[in-house]
């Protein structure tokens, strides 16, 4: 149970990261390949403030948010005028720097020895984990509601316009750089906050947590779910992390001699799923808004068909049973 709550909390963190990437890449067209850098910076910042400086959780979260905001603003000011490929390289380099600093700055991060223990913020005995999970849940639902509104808003329209044709948007009097840097700073800061919230979840921080595979997992989730759809991030994380890491890896009944293969098979299936989706639904499961309705309609239709088939099957079975019983009865009578 405790492990399930931990997994689900981590799932929510991933959804949050994918939601932020959706704003950056799906709406604005800024390819941030340094997701793990912002997340890791936030996580280690809270860890250092709590363990080394003995600060309260709230204080450390506020200071962490401020720190990540400044860092992402400066980074954004340096790279957001560049071409997309350059932004991609610069952000991936940024995350590599953060991962390296976590190893080398031993006086602060304890290096590879690890930094801990970071305790849960809600100190009610026995309920710490579950309260933290619900706190995350409320946060992610709040972000999701905001994203759904953003899609229908004037700001959302402007973001999409910048993604489609930034020069044209500027020629219509839109300060495209300002929109980009504010959105980049805000979303990266939230990624940092999600990192900060991951610190008490993980309790013990080591540099090998800041690995590019987190960035890739978030990207794969978003692309699978539909990068331009408001619900794409959530769906994508459910399908990848939820299905593979939680359901299959933890709960599938696999005999011990094959258990060692599961992570590899998981990666294989990840890849197969991604290729399949990119071939048949290049814009992700949900694609664009109108397509999503289609998918939901198809799903609904499918469920209806299965339902009616089940009903018919049930009728047929009960008829058969009746007939069999009656048949036996008539035989008996005879």
């Amino acid at each position, binding site marked *: 149970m405790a492990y399930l709550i931990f997994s689900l909390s981590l799932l929510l963190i991933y959804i949050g990261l994918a939601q932020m990437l959706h704003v950056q890449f799906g709406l604005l067209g800024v390819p941030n390949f340094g997701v793990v850098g912002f997340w890791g910076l936030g996580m280690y910042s809270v860890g250092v403030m709590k363990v080394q400086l003995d600060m309260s959780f709230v204080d450390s979260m506020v200071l962490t948010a401020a720190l990540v905001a400044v860092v992402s603003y400066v980074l954004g000011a340096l790279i957001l005028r560049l071409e997309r490929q350059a932004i991609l390289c610069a952000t991936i380099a940024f995350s590599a720097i953060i991962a390296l600093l976590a190893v080398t700055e031993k006086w602060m991060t304890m290096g590879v020895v690890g930094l801990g223990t970071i305790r849960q913020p809600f100190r009610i005995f026995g309920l710490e984990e579950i309260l933290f999970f619900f706190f995350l849940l409320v946060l992610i639902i709040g972000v999701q509601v*905001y994203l759904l*509104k*953003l899609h*229908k*808003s*004037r*700001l*959302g*329209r*402007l973001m*999409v*316009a910048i*993604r*489609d*044709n930034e*020069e*044209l*948007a*500027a*020629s*219509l*009097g*839109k*300060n*495209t750089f300002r*929109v980009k840097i*504010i959105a980049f700073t*805000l979303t990266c800061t939230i990624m940092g906050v999600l990192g900060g919230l991951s610190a008490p979840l993980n309790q013990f921080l080591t540099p090998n947590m800041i690995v590019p595979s987190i960035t890739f997992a978030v990207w794969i989730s978003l692309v699978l779910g539909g990068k*331009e759809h408001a619900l794409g991030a959530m769906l994508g994380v459910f399908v990848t992390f939820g299905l593979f890491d939680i359901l299959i890896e933890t709960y599938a009944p696999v005999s011990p001699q094959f258990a060692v293969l599961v992570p590899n098979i998981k990666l294989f299936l990840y890849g197969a799923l991604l290729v399949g989706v990119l071939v048949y639904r290049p814009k992700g499961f949900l694609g*664009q808004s109108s397509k999503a309705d289609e998918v939901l309609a198809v799903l609904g239709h499918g469920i209806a068909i299965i339902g009616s088939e089940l009903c018919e099957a049930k009728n047929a079975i009960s008829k058969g049973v009746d007939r069999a019983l009656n048949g036996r009865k008539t035989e008996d009578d005879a």
Partner: protein
Amino acid sequence: MKLHMRNLTKAYHAHPVLNVKEASLGTHGVEGLIGPNGAGKSTLMGLLTRRIKPSTGTIKLEDGDVTHRLNLIRSHQVANLGLVKTNQRIQGFSSLTIRDNLRLAATSTIDETYRGVLDDDQVDEAIEAEIDRYLSQFSFADPDGFAKSGGEKKLLDILRCLILKPRMLLMDEPTAGLPDDITKEVMDLVGAKVEAGDMTVVIVEHDLDLIWKYCSYVHFLSEGEILFHGTPDDVKNNRVVAEKYMGV
């Protein structure tokens, strides 16, 4: 609204493409800018809207008593001052419907905020009414959908600029890709706005009939220099223009 250029030059890798000693645009209502291919017309347009940086020289925008030095500002600020340009090649936002394109242009940046996302009312009645007016005047196959043909995209590009209520409109080859009847409707609307004193217009165009018909003053650009300017009749009868451009 008037534009003044002085010693304006642009060179790519030491290869000069434009060299305008001194010129003014926007003093005669509708003006034309003509010249052979490669004369530097589009480069000049790009320089005026700050899409391209000049190598040397100054551009000043005179708006009543206020003079803005365009060298110091960025392209979105130029648009906000009221100097807007339609595009020669088809440009568009592929994910926005025709209405959303016009809404985007008409919406002020002040309303495009993070707090505004939470407002339930994302519709501005005045803007919607204006969009309806444009869409009733110019017919699209599916006004609530996307601009499909090249002609629709070109028309949408011009309408997007008009709905910004520019004080000075630069039109880069408005007829390219646009059917004749639509071109006439667009030019009539533009002409009416100029008559009303809402804006001044500069048209870059190869279709000389359109230039003679709508422009009251014409600039002739050749090999990066403005060689002649005057009324359409002066330009038609000018020997330099005839030799270099009209092939007489």
